[in-house]
């Protein structure tokens, strides 16, 4: 069973439809810790501000603990999308600093493309360049253009945790992070047409 976490911070409908189109069967949209305790695959979406998403996650009784146990303890496959990926960091620096899950070392900070012609939010299609990662290799076999919408980016503490890079002007940040059973993508696979669906398909298969 795949659970898509409904904690009031994501575009659930789009993510659910894309997961189904990519081959997921038995998608359960829930925030119920008992369901999460049994999930084989867990997807955490997230839209908006880091602090709001972190607060929403903390507001559901037992959710954080269930995720820790199931993902970190028992090794269920985890995919964070957009702010759901950023929440993997130790801390989010966005209008003050807010602790994240701390599953992948790093922090988030504002994007600095270094030119007034390059607008923030970083909104639209940009290239994700995978490093060495089995899911990206199987899905794409190279770089692909995917859809981003964000003003803050994940700064990984350890480069080997970066599964794909994105460059925007003078800034270069993680388009994806991965470590063991945990993956996060800054872009929106559910809005990235065939490139996005191909990635979800391979993630679901692993």
């Amino acid at each position, binding site marked *: 069973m795949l659970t898509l976490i409904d904690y009031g911070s994501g575009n659930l409908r*789009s993510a659910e*439809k894309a997961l189904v*189109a990519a081959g997921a069967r038995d998608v359960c949209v829930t925030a119920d810790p008992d369901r999460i305790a049994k999930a084989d695959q867990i997807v955490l979406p997230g839209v908006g501000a880091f602090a709001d998403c972190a607060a929403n996650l903390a507001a559901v009784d037992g959710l954080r603990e269930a995720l820790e146990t199931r993902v970190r303890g028992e090794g269920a496959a985890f995919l964070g999308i957009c702010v759901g990926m950023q929440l993997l960091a130790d801390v989010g620096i966005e209008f003050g600093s807010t602790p994240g899950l701390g599953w992948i070392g790093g922090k988030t900070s504002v994007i600095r493309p270094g030119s*007034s012609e390059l607008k923030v939010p970083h909104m*639209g299609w940009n290239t994700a360049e995978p490093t060495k990662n089995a899911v990206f290799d199987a899905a794409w076999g190279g770089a692909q*253009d995917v859809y981003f919408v964000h003003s803050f980016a994940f700064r990984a503490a350890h480069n080997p945790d970066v599964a794909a890079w994105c460059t925007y002007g003078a800034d270069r940040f993680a388009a994806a992070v991965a470590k063991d059973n945990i993956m996060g993508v800054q872009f929106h696979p559910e809005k990235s047409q065939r490139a996005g669906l191909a990635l979800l398909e391979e993630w679901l298969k692993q």
Partner: protein
Amino acid sequence: MTLKVRIIPCLDVKDGRVVKGVQFEGLRDAGDPVEQAQFYDGEGADEICFLDISASHEGRGTLLDVVRRTAEVCFTPLTVGGGVRTTDDFRALLLAGADKVAINTSAVKDPSLVTAAARRFGAQCVVVAIDAKQTGPEQWEIFTHGGRNATGIDALAFAKDVVDRGAGELLVTSMDKDGTKSGYDLALTRAIADSVSVPVIASGGVGNLDDLVAGVTQGHANAVLAASIFHFRTHTLAEARAALAAAGAKVRQPIQGNLR
């Protein structure tokens, strides 16, 4: 590698049906916005925009259904605008599957809606649609209600104000040019694009591919929106991408390498 210029087909929807009839071959129902969105999704549109021009409450209810059905079959970012008055209207559209919501008249009447929506849903999904008419050299005025009502508000000052209030993107439409097929109002687009920190979508007046190119090279827009040249198959999205690329703009190749 950098951000690509976005090409955005726009569909006007009234009571759940596409207006300004589109003549695609092979569609089961050419008036169904969902089928048309799916067509553009397949052509590799960078985003799709629905503008609802329904006058009635029932018509708006139908729009939510259209957005829901679109989100089931399209994996392309979707902006929806028209008749949005409250943050609850935002929420209903976002839950139905819209990624961004455009507001026009309501942002002029009550600019605090921009701030409220940006706080609640994030600036990235708040698009302010600016409909402007030229009133003097390098001077434009905001119009509302589909261009019928003058407001006396300076377009450039308004653009800066709504960005300060939290708008994540501006959709700039010239009411002088809309429907004329004589190209965007490039001076208007450039004046706004050069004075705000957020992305700007050029809209209104596209008649050919050169107009799209000029929107980027002379209008400094980050995205170009058009309706009839795509709907009537004057040009395909692939032709639009090629024209922009030939002019030196960075565009997306929908599929690269060995992605099947």
